[in-house]
């Protein structure tokens, strides 16, 4: 009877895993099967024509890269600053806990509210109209918690002996930070950023009011009134009108490209994360 209960329980929980993993596999397969026919060199290098029914997604790719590039530039220094404050400058535990709480709260803010905030601040208040910079800043703040926490954990797992050796040699706090702590925690910044950018690349809500349009933009020429195209917004608009069969294949191709970009960014971070994990537990 006890053995029977064990087998039933194991089977039930195993079925859950199969279900969860199976859903993923099915999703990826569905997108791949429908999107692959559209993938070609021209797809990536041409721009959209006929409202998405023809042409390629070149400028969408450009726009997405500009957005996540800006997001990286915005989030990296702030993340480093926050991580240093958390790991080095704050001396009381409850201060550190409050900082961590702030990060978790920011992480829990829905991305649509970032978009709304961007509308208030950048479009309305600063009068920028739709601008790639607004999108980049918003995305940067969106992914800030992810990058910061990865960096904080990395710094926390650094062996103390290097810091002690440097202090023993008479280096100041700042010198130790720049010559020991930051170089050694670089991997944390890289993995956190890669994960964050993978997330940012797929986000639609923060940029749909503030930074991106469906057609008509190429490279941005200024900051004000300079929107960009983007992969997720392209999909978002076309998805609401997906009855045109000519659009169909291109739409799936765009989805596959976006998925591929996100997966690529996440997978690149993986070996580095495994290494960090190994070091933290067996270093």
């Amino acid at each position: 009877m006890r053995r029977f209960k064990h087998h039933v329980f194991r089977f039930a929980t195993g079925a859950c895993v199969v279900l969860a993993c199976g859903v993923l596999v099915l999703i990826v397969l569905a997108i791949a099967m429908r999107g692959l026919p559209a993938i070609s060199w021209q797809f990536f290098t041409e721009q959209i024509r006929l409202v998405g029914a023809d042409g390629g997604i070149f400028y969408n790719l450009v726009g997405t890269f500009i957005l996540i590039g800006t997001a990286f530039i915005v989030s990296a220094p702030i993340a480093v600053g926050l991580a240093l404050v958390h790991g080095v400058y704050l001396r009381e535990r409850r201060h550190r806990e409050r900082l961590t709480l702030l990060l978790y709260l920011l992480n829990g803010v829905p991305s649509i509210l970032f978009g709304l905030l961007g509308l208030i601040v950048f479009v309305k208040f600063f009068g920028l109209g739709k601008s790639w910079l607004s999108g980049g800043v918003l995305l940067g703040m969106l992914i800030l918690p992810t990058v910061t926490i990865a960096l904080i954990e990395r710094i926390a797992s650094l062996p103390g002996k290097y810091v002690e050796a440097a202090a023993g040699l008479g280096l100041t706090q700042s010198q130790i930070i720049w010559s020991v702590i930051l170089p050694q925690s670089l991997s944390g910044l890289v993995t956190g950023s890669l994960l964050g950018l993978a997330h940012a690349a797929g986000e639609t809500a923060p940029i749909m009011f503030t930074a991106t349009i469906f057609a008509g933009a190429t490279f941005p020429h200024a900051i004000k009134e300079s929107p960009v195209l983007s992969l997720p917004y392209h999909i978002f608009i076309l998805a609401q009108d997906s009855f045109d069969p000519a659009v169909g294949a291109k739409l799936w191709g765009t989805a596959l490209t976006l998925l591929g970009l996100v997966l690529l960014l996440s997978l690149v971070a993986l070996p580095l994360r495994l290494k960090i994990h190994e070091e933290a537990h067996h270093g």
Partner: protein
Amino acid sequence: MTTVAPAARSLAGNLPRRRWSATRSLSYGFSALAAGFVVVLAVLFVWQSIPAWRHEGLGFLPGKKWFYPQEQFGALAMIYGTVIVSLIALLLAAPIGIGAAIFSAEFIPRRLQLAVKVLIELLAGIPSVVYGLLGILFLRDWIYRALTPFDPLSGDTLLTAGILLAVMILPTVMTLCDDALRGVPSAQRQAARGLGLTQTEVVLSVCLPQAARGMVAAVLLALGRALGEAIAVFLVVGRQDNQWPANPFSLRPLIESGQTLTSKLASSETNIAYGDPLHWAAIVGLGLVLLAMTVTVTLVGTQLMRPREGHA
């Protein structure tokens, strides 16, 4: 995201201090930017929605009608939609996610655990707009066909959005529950097995009670994600206003179209409202309600995940 234990060994203690340093100022400066962002977010949402609160008073929340041309702004139907959709997602994702986490943490060898972890993370990385696309092109039809005995108007329903959300938050539940289970010391599993308990009995009487807190936190954080998801929900929920049911406990609304706070915010009405101060204030008011809901849930969930004080 993983849980962060406060740095056990703050490097601050080891380092010699100086009166002023550029690095420290820069670090605090950047941190102030982040803090400022959060403050600005909260303040602006409150401030910009004031006209709406003044117009409707506290009736904004329980108001059942939203009809902006007549300057009627009641959020209740959308709050209802948000709650229902998130509840459906939780009811589906929580058991499966917990079950999968249990199997992954307790019943499979370490190398397979890693593979499952990677797979689930990839599932978590799929953008919401792609989920929305899949929802439109597949889920919508399936639901429509499944519901034919009930004579539905379309496949865009609260139920559709709920199911789609369930798949989206499943990885969150699974990863966080997995972390919670790993927090149980393996010495206890060994001791329990040594007494002759089966693996299932060990999971049920040793691991789950101790991981319970973390699992509740996992579910809460997943709830937070579900509450705030805009794009995927927007695409499949039907975007039908004023769907407040006569009987709030009936199941009928599930198979009808609805509106959530997020689907309204992501809609073109936000752009329309841009010009009119009252309408705009109402929209921001919806955002404020959403913010309050998600912050509360995230706060409780995060506090639950902290290690218990004074635990031996």
